[in-house]
């Protein structure tokens, strides 16, 4: 719900703000569909802290208190979310995760005592089940690449809006990686310009799994399509990550696309 909708419009039309936010409502889907690439984590044991019906514990890290408070208002409106802490620095963020154990951490990239990628790397090393969604005011492919390398589950660039933030929190909690296609395209351009990495030698089966990952298919979906157990699919995924030198399925797809192993246009 957008609070702004409560504002009374002047005679003869909507407020500019109302128009802007209504525009967002129409543009953004609450679930990953076209325009968003999504990967499902293996169900069940992959998210040990996940319990049906529990509220998603969210931590907010932003040095602009006003932004953090605004995010807090937005997230508190969602009945399935619970704000467990707000931090303004990398040090506070680490303390927040240690003491409050959020499921999802919304992390601003630029912080007074360091950058978000460094913070995410440290947090995920110590509490690997935490899902980190990077918020970036400054955008940029380099920040995105560093965020992915750090193991972040999502990346929201400068022009994010409230609905995208809420969607990203829920998706991260479910174990999905959400990155807007526009951002991904920028990343691929950057990777194409970068020196070629070692693509490794994927087996035919691994190649098939990789192509299905690029289409956003879940482990369960891939296992039923290829008549394999989910355990086997997860093994293939692990091998793919190792051979491509990737830290996440998303990075694996990005590397594979860069090296021409798969084509992202082939997402039918």
């Amino acid at each position, binding site marked *: 719900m957008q*609070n702004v909708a409560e504002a*009374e419009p*002047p005679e003869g039309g909507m407020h500019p703000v109302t128009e802007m936010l209504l525009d967002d409502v129409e543009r953004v889907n609450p679930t990953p569909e076209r325009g968003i690439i999504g990967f499902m984590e293996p169900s069940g044991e992959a998210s040990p802290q996940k319990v049906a019906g529990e509220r998603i514990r969210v931590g907010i890290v932003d040095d602009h208190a006003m932004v953090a*408070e605004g995010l807090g208002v*937005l997230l508190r409106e969602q009945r399935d979310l619970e704000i467990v802490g707000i931090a303004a620095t990398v040090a506070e963020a680490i303390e927040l995760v240690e003491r409050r154990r959020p499921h999802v951490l919304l992390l601003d990239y630029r912080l007074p005592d360091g950058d978000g990628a460094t913070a995410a790397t440290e947090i995920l090393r110590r509490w690997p089940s935490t899902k980190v969604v990077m918020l970036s005011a400054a955008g940029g492919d380099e920040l995105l690449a560093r965020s992915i390398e750090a193991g972040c589950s999502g990346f929201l660039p*400068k022009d994010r809006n409230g609905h995208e933030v809420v969607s990203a929190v829920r998706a991260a909690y479910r174990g999905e990686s959400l990155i807007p296609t526009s951002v991904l395209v920028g990343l691929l351009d950057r990777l194409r310009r970068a020196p070629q990495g070692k693509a490794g030698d994927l087996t035919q089966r691994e190649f098939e799994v990789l192509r299905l990952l690029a289409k956003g298919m879940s482990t369960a979906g891939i296992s039923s399509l290829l008549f394999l157990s989910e355990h086997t699919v997860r093994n293939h995924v692990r091998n793919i990550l190792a051979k491509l030198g990737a830290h996440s399925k998303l990075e694996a797809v990005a590397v594979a696309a860069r090296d021409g192993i798969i084509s992202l246009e082939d997402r039918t």
Partner: protein
Amino acid sequence: MLRSSERRITVVLADDQRAIIDALTRLFAEQPDIELIGAGRNAEEALRLCVEHEPDVAVLDVRMPQGGGAVAAIEMRSRGLKTRVVALSAFDDKATRDHMMAAGAVSYVLKDRPVGELLEAIRQAAGRRSPGEDVAG
């Protein structure tokens, strides 16, 4: 309490960061005495909104593309608008603060401060008290 006959403080907001506009839109909507009537992303949009609506208060980011809050504030004053300007800033340095105040801002609020400070600055600029202050009403 806010008297029902007393109209809300009208506010125009300008900031090039979408996150700030989104955050303040939500935070203003929770205030019974504040009505956000428009938001822009640069000085030109801020000026257009203020000329069109002549709000009680304009909350202007000090640095925006195509001219920051100072440009808009000076232009508003030269056009004789009665809108009071509250500067919103990520920069806690004397030069930026002096520049905004010289341009006509009545107060200067930092983005790393709690939103309560901004709300108070808006109410002061509009010559109002906080909604909770007059409990005898």
